[in-house]
């Protein structure tokens, strides 16, 4: 791609394109960040079916993603050593309480290296949604989870609607959840 542009040096049209293309890409990137607040991680899963899984939760229940078809699922990858994750979790509990009857299901995926610290935190916070233990393979299937928090929103048909990387996206996430549930904006 770069070589092709270099070969076109001298052509007025190509010279224009050299400016236009980066500008368009820049505007698109800035636009997508401004609108959604999503970071620059790949969004390859957005618009595609969410990878299924069947795992036992740290609360000792079986969690199959498929069983939540028809609901809006907020799938949150987190870890006990992640400060921003622990800021988000109480809000997810509130949303589960507030929007659960409207069709929201929050599911946590801990990427702690063992279940013990995750279970301890779940019990301490009295979490009102299930938490399963994730691993490298599940992270890969979700397009790469290489840092937390990462949150996916999955629509009632089972397709990934959005991916949020990092902290400070709670307002955007709630906005999107409400929209997916068919609720008016705040």
């Amino acid at each position: 791609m770069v070589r092709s542009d270099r070969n076109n040096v001298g052509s007025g049209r190509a010279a224009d394109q050299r400016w236009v293309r980066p500008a368009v890409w820049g505007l698109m990137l800035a636009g997508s960040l401004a609108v959604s607040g999503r970071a620059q991680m790949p969004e390859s899963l957005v618009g595609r079916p969410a990878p299924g899984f069947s795992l036992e939760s740290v609360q000792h229940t079986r969690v199959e993603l498929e069983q939540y078809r028809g609901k809006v699922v907020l799938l949150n990858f987190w870890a006990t050593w992640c400060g921003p994750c622990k800021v988000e979790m109480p809000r997810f509990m509130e949303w589960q309480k507030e929007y659960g009857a409207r069709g929201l299901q929050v599911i946590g995926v801990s990427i702690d290296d063992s279940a013990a610290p995750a279970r301890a935190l779940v019990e301490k916070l009295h979490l009102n949604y299930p938490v399963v233990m994730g691993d490298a393979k599940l992270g890969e299937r979700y397009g790469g989870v290489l840092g937390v928090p990462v949150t996916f929103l999955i629509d009632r048909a089972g397709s990934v609607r959005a991916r949020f990387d990092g902290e400070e996206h709670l307002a955007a996430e709630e906005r999107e959840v409400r929209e997916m549930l068919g609720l008016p904006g705040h």
Partner: protein
Amino acid sequence: MRKRSVLWRGMAPAVLLAATTCAVVQGQSAATIPQAVLVQPAALHRKLEAHPHAALILQVGSRTLFDEDHIVGAEYAGPGSRPEGQQALRARVAGLPRTREIVLYCGCCPWRKCPNIAPAWELLHGMGFMRVRVLYIAQNFGADWVAQGYGAERSQ
């Protein structure tokens, strides 16, 4: 007057404890790592392209994240914030000359929230290693390294 002095005497241990706790927590923040030892991802990438084995690269964060993707040639050395991680890191570098170039990285969370990187750096610094660099990862390893195309591999 007497009441006030009793009150102060009662509060003193709590104030001291709070101050100590605060100092400990601050001591573990990535923000305490000297700027001079930080290396930006692009710079490390260039260095590794030119000299792939110049430095020992150690990931001091999550095993799960390491297994999913890590810098090519890097080794996992345990979570820097936990005693078992510090023990593993100490054991890994124990026999190395103090002049060995070592690059530490984590990338589990945004830089200022990372619990692992500062304790790991402090440990090696305290052991007398003179050429320790710390990879500055602003957001996380995925966004600042993998998504930049700097090359990564998963565990076998």
